[in-house]
């Protein structure tokens, strides 16, 4: 048996989210029906509209913002000589929370994935090169995920910068905090050894 139309529509809407199956969507829909006040609903609708209308990528770095440039790019106290390259806006947030970096960012919005037909033109590599024309920048730090595609993308950017006098570095990969060597997988150990440094 089917639910009444409006309820069905709501369930279907929730099911558009990744990782939300029919059962969870039904729980959310019933929760909305029974527990939400009118203001809750109004708030919800309002924020859905606002993310779509107000949030866009920063014209410089690609990080999500509600202005033409993001707060990081606007902040002149930040080190303008470094650009840290990441895959997504979420990575920027995580690194910012760690308070371990004070330079600028560049969000690629993806990685090169030849088997899925995603080439260099499909991610924000050109805008990165544009930014690097600016003489202030001295170092590009690659902080891509330790995935096969992350590796390929890092190598690609490094290759592009080889002929410039920019310093191209990449963050080290290794054991997580509290990580036990005995439980580390082959790739992690390999990377940890590769990235070893002198005491």
């Amino acid at each position: 048996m089917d639910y009444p139309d409006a309820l069905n529509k709501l369930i279907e809407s929730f099911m558009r989210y990744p990782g939300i199956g029919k059962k969870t969507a039904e729980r959310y829909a019933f929760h909305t029906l029974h527990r939400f006040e009118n203001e809750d609903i109004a708030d919800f609708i309002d924020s859905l509209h606002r993310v779509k209308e107000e949030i866009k990528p920063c014209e410089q770095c690609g990080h999500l913002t509600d202005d033409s440039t993001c707060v990081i790019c606007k902040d002149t106290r930040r080190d303008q000589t470094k650009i840290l390259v990441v895959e997504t806006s979420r990575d920027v947030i995580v690194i910012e929370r760690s308070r371990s970096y004070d330079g600028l960012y560049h969000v690629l919005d993806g990685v090169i994935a030849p088997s899925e037909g995603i080439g260099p033109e499909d991610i924000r590599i050109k805008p990165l090169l544009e930014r690097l024309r600016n003489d202030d920048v001295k170092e590009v730090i690659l902080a891509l995920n330790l995935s096969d595609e992350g590796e390929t993308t890092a190598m690609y950017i490094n290759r592009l910068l080889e002929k410039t006098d920019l310093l191209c570095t990449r963050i080290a990969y290794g054991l997580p905090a509290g990580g036990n060597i005995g439980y580390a997988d082959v790739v992690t150990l390999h990377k940890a050894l590769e990235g070893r440094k002198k005491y």
Partner: protein
Amino acid sequence: MKVKSIALSGFRRIEAMQLDLHPKLNIIVGANAQGKTSILESLHALALTKSHKTISDGDMIKTGHETAEISAVCDFDGREASFIITLSKTGKKVKYNRIEMRRLSDYIGRLNVVMFAPEDLELIKGGPRERRRFIDLAIGQVDKPYVHHLSRYRKLLKERNEILKSMQKDNKFDAISLDVVTDQLVHYAAKIVERRKAFIDDLSKRLPQKLSMLAEDDPTLSVRYAASVDSDLETVFKQKRTFDIRRATTTIGPHRDDCVFLFDAKPLIDTASQGQIRTVVLAVRLALIDIIRDVVEKTPIILLDDVFSELDQVRVKRIIEQLYGDAQVLLTATDLRGIDVTTLQEHHIITIDDGQITGVDKHGRQTL
């Protein structure tokens, strides 16, 4: 290592089956097409995540079923371990001690099996693909990083071919993309070729002694790796770059390599008789048992599919003698005629009919 029990569901013609195994010898008896080979195949698939015969995993799933599941409880010198593999149309999942292993390289090699099957003749008579499959499965059993290198190589190969194709079509990928992927491909190719050569050398050294146990006056048996690139891989990939772009595919590398079995240093395919080829592939498997034993310091589970119907009694006896006191053996036969039960140690005779176990005869030491 011993398999204490296995459970199958939706595998080949078997709807559901649960079977306890004898730690030494298990003889699976039944008429044709009842599911004997399927039981051995299931252990092969559980250990190595692949069938010994079909290329496509989906073929192992029972017609009309969504998934097939194989699980086993094993004994490693008193320590128990469980293995589960679930095959579905979209892929496979493996669990070791109930924990899902995301990388097959963390799973393969924990349970070792060596299969003797009629399909083994393909090792000589078949094409390079069959021989590479044999080599890769064999090394995978004793070398975890190899499994990882192989899977990286396969993915990069696919990517390189996509890039080469696109360079002719839409130019989505540029020369730098090609070089970056090629560099990584060459890195893994070198590791794979080096490991395969070492394996083939090791195998070759062991073959004459194994063959002499099976046949008196056969020529000297050896095997040689036949690489598609015989000099430095990086250089050759550079040389072949334009050629590969024109052909829109990767024309060299370990995916094009082969190995050649030789009698007195001449390819044996040209001269060997049917019977000789049969003993050669038996010798290869016997040598593989030793290679695995030397590395993991345990005897693999030995699966003998239909080997006895093909051979005379003398050879059968020699093989049984070869199979070491401590090995767990599963063998299939359509009837017990070819097998001299009185010469065997304790064993179970498992009868199978219509995909189901219809009886287990337990023969202890005392009854012999």
